[in-house]
């Protein structure tokens, strides 16, 4: 086995610290009952902030709203992004370039700019301040991400399998159900998680399109921070990071069981 050079190991440790450092700081902040300036450690710690999070009806309903929106966004973006990615991967020349750019635009556009544009559309559709309007808004960047993801995945996908299935007597629906979906099961799961995570972390779009009436966990977190309740805010922020970590962990387990790594 090749030994990893010390410089690479140091770089990996630094990256891990950068990724985990803020989460650890949040956990300490949430547990610190008393942490005065200049003190290196909190004088008193406890789980009260997490307990408050669990008993708060407002935070629980925000958590449910975020989960619902994320799942709906992930599932819808997975379907839309799959078809868009498939169409683009089969296209050539200008169609493929323009299509990829269209998928890329909501990914790179600043959320605030995207939100203002979407606000107009959603208000015209009569969905302003509604969860359906927020779902539509979340779908725009999520579908962009998922389309780009599938564009990469499907470029390496052997569609000869589908062609042979067709000539073996399977109609389009049977090919989709019995060949395409099972063959791409893990990729579809990854796309669902990707779309859900895009929705899970949205703040600007939710505020602009939901008008403050759609209370997701990030929106509640912002309120807590504005009200100065840093401890519960930190606990809520920790809660916000748990589902993405769980989802990524599950995907890794799935990949290992399938005999390959993501």
């Amino acid at each position, binding site marked *: 086995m090749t030994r990893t050079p010390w410089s690479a190991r140091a770089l990996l440790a630094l990256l891990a610290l950068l990724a985990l450092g803020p989460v650890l700081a949040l956990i300490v902040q949430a547990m610190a009952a008393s942490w005065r300036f200049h003190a290196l450690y909190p004088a008193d710690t406890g789980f009260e902030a997490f307990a408050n999070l669990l008993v708060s009806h407002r935070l629980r309903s925000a958590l449910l709203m975020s989960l619902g929106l994320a799942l709906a966004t992930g599932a819808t973006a997975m379907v839309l992004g799959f078809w868009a990615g498939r169409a683009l991967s089969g296209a050539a020349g200008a169609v493929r370039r323009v299509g990829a750019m269209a998928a890329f635009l909501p990914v790179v556009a600043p959320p605030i700019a995207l939100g203002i544009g979407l606000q107009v559309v959603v208000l015209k559709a009569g969905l302003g301040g509604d969860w359906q309007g927020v779902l539509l808004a979340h779908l725009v960047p999520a579908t962009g991400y998922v389309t780009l993801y599938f564009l990469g995945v499907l470029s390496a996908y*052997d569609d*000869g*399998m589908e*062609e*042979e*299935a*067709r*000539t*073996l*007597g*399977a*109609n389009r629906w*049977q090919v989709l159900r*019995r*060949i395409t979906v*099972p*063959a791409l*099961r893990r990729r579809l799961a990854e796309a669902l998680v990707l779309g859900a995570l895009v929705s899970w972390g949205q703040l600007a779009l939710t505020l602009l399109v939901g008008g403050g009436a759609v209370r997701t966990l990030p929106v509640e977190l912002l309120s807590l921070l504005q009200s100065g309740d840093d401890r519960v805010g930190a606990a809520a922020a920790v809660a916000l990071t748990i589902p993405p970590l769980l989802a990524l962990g599950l995907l890794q387990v799935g990949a290992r069981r399938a005999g390959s790594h993501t």
Partner: protein
Amino acid sequence: MSDGGLQLEGVDVRFGTAAGLRGLTLQVAAGERVALLGPSGAGKTSLLRVIAGLDPLAGGRVIVGGIDVSSVTPDRRRTVYLHQNPSLFTHLSVVDNVAFPLEVRGVERRQARRQATELLARVHLDGFALRRAGGLSGGQRHRVALARALAAQPHVLLLDEPFSALDPSLRAEVREAVMALLDDRGPATIVVTHDIDEAAQFADRLAVLLDRRITQFAPPGEVLCHPASLRVARFLGIPNIIAGASDGTGRFESPIGSVPAGSHAGPGLLVGRADAFLATRAPAGRGIARVEAFVERVGGTWLWVRAGAARVLASEAGDARLAVGDSVEITIFPDRVHVLPPESDSVTEDVPRVR
């Protein structure tokens, strides 16, 4: 079981936006095996895809089992297309791969699996039924793909370079398995291959696709001994193309001997494979040619001999024990050579290399 085979009537095939094959007409009977030969880019795969309904037909009609399927979707054509590297469904077991065509046609799962197991036994893979398809070797994959294709009970089977990805020992094994199964089941089969020897062994007839049309369609012996044109002869890699002329007495004279000229008159080209010319040691002073080199092949040894301007690849008489520089006589087997009219390009100085 098949009934009626395949018929192409004036089929046009486009290559993307470019003009492709035009007005192809071909008939393959049920149970017949046809090898489609042609240089790379001739449109062999494009033609198979059009027959299978995977690409649109630009003109003409495709008739399968007596029914015009030109506008029928691929799943309803009773025409199975196999890629060069068979695309097994890697998320399914071997037996479920073979049962797939039966299940999608509504056969109950248990019955489909039973039939699939029988088919696997016919390709000697019954012990592999429950394995994942992704874990099979190249030869096993081909045999599973073939069993799966036959489970669909096609009228037409299209094999796109089925043996080219296999090593020489597996090629023979898979080819034999395919031939054994096809004899029994009897779909009209078209196989695309670049290997002319393989095509000749596998097929009942060869179709040579050159210059966007089928230039010759005949049994292997006929195509290889009597190519329709110099272009076909060159494509097939026939090594001997020797200039000569008909002398007006019904004989065609060349530097290595004469043969019946048939209807040919005037200058022409004598075309033949190495086995059409037999080199034997010449008695002193009677040799017309001299041995230049030996060509070692799996199937035996050939030798290059020179007679004046003509260079001929010939087979060696069993007891000749020739060496380079020996003087030889050449016996020409008239039924294995063909006289063609001369074409614009000179050939005697540009004899194709042995494959």
